[in-house]
């Protein structure tokens, strides 16, 4: 008697074992997008419409905002969500238009480095920031500093 062993299909199960990064990227774009609408619109309202508009922005204005953990958290969230959202969008565009593998790899690599460096830089700045730096010119300091002019 001849028998034939029919193996169970493996490809679907194998595919299920690995993380579907493109699916999570797709979900990330939508979730971060909704959050960014709130965070960015709030950011634009407070900085460009409320108070004296865009001309109010100077060191004292930023220092006044980052004296409160509320705006530190707000801006850090916005930084991470927006740079990863924008980086993933730029990745899509590079993959769509750059056919040359070497150039594509260079562009994707530079994109990854830029996004990573800016997230690190922005996070460090927002959390190690001193609104009243010692020796700072009193004319530039916010009113909350004892050295302010």
């Amino acid at each position, binding site marked *: 008697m001849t028998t034939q062993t029919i193996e169970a299909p493996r490809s679907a199960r194998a595919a299920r074992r690995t993380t579907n990064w493109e699916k999570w990227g797709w979900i990330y774009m939508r979730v971060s997008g909704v959050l960014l609408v709130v965070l*960015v619109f709030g950011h634009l309202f407070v900085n460009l419409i409320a108070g004296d508009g865009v001309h109010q922005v*100077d060191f004292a204005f930023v220092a006044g905002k980052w004296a409160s953990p509320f705006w530190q958290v707000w801006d850090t969230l916005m930084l991470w969500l927006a740079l990863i959202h*924008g980086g993933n969008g730029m990745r899509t565009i590079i993959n769509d238009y750059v056919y040359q593998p070497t150039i594509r790899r260079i562009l994707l690599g530079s994109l990854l480095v830029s996004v990573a460096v800016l997230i690190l830089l922005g996070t460090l*700045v927002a959390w190690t920031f001193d609104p009243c730096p010692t020796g700072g*010119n009193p004319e530039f300091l916010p009113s909350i500093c004892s050295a302010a002019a």
Partner: protein
Amino acid sequence: MSGTAGVVADDRSVDVPVPRTRIAGTVYRGREGMWSWVLHRITGVAIFFFLLVHVMDTALVRLSPEAYDAVIGTYKTPLMGLGEAGLVGAIVFHAYNGLRIIAVDFSRWAVRHQRLLFWVVLGLWAVTMAGFLPRHLMVVFSELGE
């Protein structure tokens, strides 16, 4: 079903109206859907490059108050003010059109009405900009003499 085409060929398929002037074989190309896609890309790239510069100029607060105010001071010109208006216009479009994309992804009604929703996006964009521009341009041009 004349005048409609299935988007997905299974039980989740949705019948969508086919525009009269469409390019053969698509329901999307050459009309509102395409322009929504094109504008989403262009505004997205513009916002991304602004973001790179914006994180770096804000990082100057960590250097010194003088350095930050010197760089931000060069932004306080009518030309940069108009640039800011363009940037806000790009952000508002990208935001509303992104919400439209999410609606089309998750709702059958929105798939059928994706072209109408593009005009809703443009309408809401116009209303938002009508609220923002007078305020912003007043700030930008009122302090010219200072």
